[in-house]
C-alpha cells in the first residue's frame, strides 16, 4: 500500500533479521528506535554495519524527541518532529525525511519500541530512478482497481501467455456454453472460483512472482468476473428480485427523507450530492473490486462533505470537530441510498460477497460494505410510516431537471466556494493531475454520467419530448423553491421505458440535494 512499505520484503528489515540479527536483538532489548528506509530507495545501497548503526538509534539522554546513532561515538543525532525525521548532527546535510508509517513494536518482554518506515535512508543520496520507480509502483498499486487496469496488468507478463490463453478459453466456454439454472447460482459461482484459482496457479508457476501473489489473484478475479459480468449480473438480479421489489417500495416510501428526520445529529445534517453521484455509478461497474471501491468512495464523500460542512459552521476559535461514528454513517446513508435510487443494492451486495475470493473482509473496503449492509438492513426493517406522515408534499416530490443538474455541475466547476476548496484540502493538490481529489472525481462522475445519459437519450427508440413533461426553463418559471411542484411520478412511469435507469434516478431524487445546497 502507498501509506507504508511491505517490511517483509524490505532488504534492510530482512538484513536485521539475518546478517545483523545480534544488533537488532540488542535494539529490541534496549527499546531503541528502528528506522527502515522504504524498499525502493535501498536499490544499490550497501547495507553494512555503519548503515545499521545510523538507522538504529537510542533515545537522547539530554533532549526529548531526539535520538542518537548506535555507533561507538554516537556521532549522529536526529529529531522526530510532526511526522518527519530531521537530521541534526553528524550528517552531510540537514534534511527532513518523511515518516511513511509507524509500527508500535514490543520486544520479548513486551516493552514497547518504535519501528518507523521512512521515505529514504537518513544519509547519502537516493538514485532518482529509485524514487521514481517507487512512486510509480505506489501509483500502480493504488490505481489498479478497474477492470481495464487489472486486465492490462495481467497481460503485462509475457511469460504467462500460455496461462492467459487457457484462461481466455475457459472464460469463453463459460460465457457461451455454461447455462445458469435458476436456483443454482452457487454452482456458477464455484465454477468461476475454480477458473480463477486455476489461472492464478498457472500464472504463478510460469512467472514466479511470489511477492505479487495477491495482486495477481486480484487481477485474475477482476478479469474473469468482469468478462462474465453481463451474464452473472443478470442472474444475480434475478435471484435478488423479491428483495429488490421490497427495497423499491421502501425507496418510494422514503423519497425526500432528510437526515434530520431520521435522527442524524444536527451538526452533521447537510446535503450530500457528491456521495449521491458516486453511488449512482454502482450498478454500471463490472467487478466486485470496482463496486467495493465505489462504496468506499461514497463513504469518503459523505465524510468529506460532512467535514466541510462542519468546518464552515464551527466556532473559528475551536479546533475540535465531532467524530462521525457508525451510528451516524448508517443514518446518513439512508437519504443517499434513496436519492441515488439504489434499486439493485441487494444484487450488488451479493455480487461483491460471492464473486471475489482474494480480498480481505476485514479492511476498509470490507468495512464500507458492512456499513452499507447495515444501512440497508436498517432501512428495510425500520418502520417509517410515522415519518412519512410528517413529510410535506414538497419533500415527497422533490425533483430536479437535467438542465438544473447541469447548471449545478457547471457552477461547481466554475465557482468552487472558498470553503469548499479549503474544506476538502484541495489547494495545490487539486491542480496536480496525479492527485485527484474526491471533489474532482465527483465532477468527472457528473460529466461521465451526463454523457452516458445523453447517449441513452439519443439511442432511445421513442421520441422524448421532455423528461418531466416540461422544459427546465418552464419548470423554473413555474414556481420558485418551496412552491408546490408538479407531481411528475405518473409521467415518469409512463416514460420510463425511454429513459436509462440513471436518468430516471436523476429525475427522481438526485436534485433535492442540489436544490437544498444553495
Amino acid at each position, binding site marked *: *500500500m502507498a*501509506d*507504508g512499505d*511491505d*517490511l517483509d520484503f524490505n532488504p534492510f528489515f530482512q538484513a536485521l*533479521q539475518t546478517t545483523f540479527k545480534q544488533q537488532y536483538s540488542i535494539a529490541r532489548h534496549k527499546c531503541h528506535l528502528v528506522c527502515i528506509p522504504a524498499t525502493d530507495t535501498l536499490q544499490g545501497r550497501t547495507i553494512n554495519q555503519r548503515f545499521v548503526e545510523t538507522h538504529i538509534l537510542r533515545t537522547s539522554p539530554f533532549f526529548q524527541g531526539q535520538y542518537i546513532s548506535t555507533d561507538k561515538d554516537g556521532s549522529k543525532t536526529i529529531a522526530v518532529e510532526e*511526522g518527519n525525521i530531521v537530521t541534526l548532527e553528524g550528517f552531510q546535510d540537514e534534511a527532513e525525511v518523511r515518516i511513511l*508509517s*509507524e*509500527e*508500535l*513494536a*514490543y*520486544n*520479548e518482554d*513486551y516493552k514497547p519500541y518504535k519501528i*518507523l518506515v521512512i521515505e529514504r535512508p537518513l544519509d547519502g543520496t537516493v538514485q532518482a530512478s529509485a524514487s521514481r520507480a517507487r512512486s510509480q509502483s505506489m501509483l500502480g*498499486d*493504488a490505481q*489498479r482497481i478497474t477492470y481495464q487496469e487489472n486486465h492490462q496488468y495481467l497481460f503485462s507478463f509475457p511469460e504467462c501467455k500460455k496461462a492467459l490463453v487457457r484462461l481466455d478459453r475457459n472464460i469463453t466456454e463459460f460465457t457461451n456454453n455454461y447455462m445458469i439454472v435458476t436456483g443454482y447460482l452457487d454452482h456458477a459461482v464455484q465454477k468461476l*472460483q475454480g477458473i480463477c*484459482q486455476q489461472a*492464478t*496457479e498457472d500464472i*504463478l*508457476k510460469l512467472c514466479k512472482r511470489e511477492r*505479487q501473489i*495477491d*495482486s495477481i*489473484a*486480484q*487481477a485474475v478475479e477482476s478479469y474473469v468476473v468482469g468478462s462474465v459480468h453481463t451474464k452473472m449480473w443478470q442472474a444475480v438480479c434475478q435471484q435478488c428480485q423479491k428483495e429488490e421489489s421490497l427495497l423499491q417500495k421502501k425507496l418510494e416510501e422514503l423519497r425526500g427523507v432528510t437526515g434530520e428526520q431520521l435522527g442524524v445529529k444536527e451538526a452533521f445534517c447537510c446535503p450530500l450530492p457528491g456521495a449521491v453521484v458516486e453511488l449512482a455509478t454502482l450498478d454500471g461497474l463490472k467487478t466486485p*473490486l470496482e463496486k467495493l471501491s465505489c462504496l468506499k468512495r461514497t463513504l469518503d464523500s459523505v*465524510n468529506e462533505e*460532512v*467535514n466541510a460542512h462542519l468546518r464552515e459552521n464551527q466556532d473559528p476559535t475551536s479546533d475540535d470537530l*465531532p*467524530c*462521525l*461514528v*457508525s*451510528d451516524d454513517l*448508517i443514518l446518513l446513508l439512508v437519504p443517499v441510498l434513496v436519492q441515488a435510487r439504489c434499486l439493485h443494492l441487494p444484487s450488488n451486495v451479493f455480487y461483491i460477497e460471492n464473486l471475489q*475470493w*482474494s*480480498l*480481505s*473482509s*476485514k*479492511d*476498509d473496503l*470490507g*468495512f464500507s460494505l*458492512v*456499513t452499507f*449492509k*447495515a444501512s440497508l*438492513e*436498517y432501512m428495510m*426493517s425500520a418502520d417509517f410510516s410515522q415519518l412519512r406522515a410528517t413529510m410535506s408534499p414538497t419533500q415527497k416530490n422533490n425533483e430536479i431537471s437535467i438542465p438544473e443538474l447541469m447548471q449545478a455541475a457547471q457552477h461547481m466547476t466554475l465557482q468552487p466556494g472558498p470553503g469548499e476548496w479549503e474544506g476538502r484540502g484541495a489547494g495545490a493538490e487539486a491542480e496536480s493531475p496525479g492527485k485527484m481529489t474526491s471533489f474532482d472525481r465527483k465532477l468527472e462522475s457528473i460529466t461521465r454520467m451526463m454523457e452516458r445519459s445523453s447517449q441513452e437519450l439519443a439511442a432511445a427508440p421513442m421520441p422524448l419530448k421532455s423528461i418531466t413533461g416540461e422544459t427546465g426553463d418552464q419548470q423554473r418559471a413555474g414556481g420558485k423553491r418551496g412552491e408546490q411542484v408538479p407531481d411528475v411520478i405518473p409521467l415518469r412511469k409512463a416514460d420510463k421505458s425511454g429513459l436509462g435507469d440513471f436518468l430516471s434516478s436523476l429525475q427522481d431524487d438526485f436534485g433535492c440535494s442540489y436544490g437544498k445546497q444553495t
Partner: protein
Amino acid sequence: MAAGGARGHQFKVVLLGEGCVGKTSLVLRYCEDKFNDKHISTLQASFLTKKLNIAGKRVNLAIWDTAGQERFHALGPIYYRDSNGAILVYDITDEDSFQKVKNWVKELRKMLGSEVTLCIAGNKIDLEKQRNVPAEEAEAYATSVGAKHFHTSAKLNKGVEEMFLDLTKRMLEKDTNSKPDATAKPGSTRRNIQITEDEPQEQKSGCC
C-alpha cells in the same frame, strides 16, 4: 486491498457497547498518534487501523467501531462477523451499560463461540468517585466468561495500550495454535494456492 500483500497477521477487532460509554474515544486515543495523514485530516472514527510488531510478529489491527444506539442493536451480527477480537466497553458510572456488556458477551459467545477473544473495558476511571459498577464484580464477571477486564480512561490515556496489547497477544496465541501458516490471510476466503512444478513441458508430443 489486494495490492500491497501484507504478510503478517490481520485481526479484526470490534468495539461494542452502549452509546456514550467512550468506545470512539478509546480507539482514537489508541490510534491518534499515527503518522498516516489520511486519518489526521479526517473526522472518521468508525474504522481505524494500527500496526503492531509483537516479538517479531507483525500484526495489523483493523478496529471497527460499531453502532451503539439501541435501535441498531439488531445490526450487531453484520459488524462482528469474522471478528478475531472484541472489546466490550462500559462506563463505570453507568450500571446499565455494564448490563449491556453482559448481553453482548452472551450474544458473542452464542454466535462466534470461543473463537473470539474478549476484553471488557471499564471506561472513564477518571470519574472514579462516581463509580456505580463495583470493580470486583466486573473483574469476577470477566473471569467467569473467559474475558480479561481492564480499567481504562481514554481521557487520561490509562489502560488503553495495555488492553490492546493483551488482546493482540491472546489473538496471536489463538491464531498461531489454529493456523500454523502465519502467512495466510485470515480475512480472505481464498483457498490456499499451492504452486507445484509441472512435468517438463518440452516432453509433450505433438500428436493430436
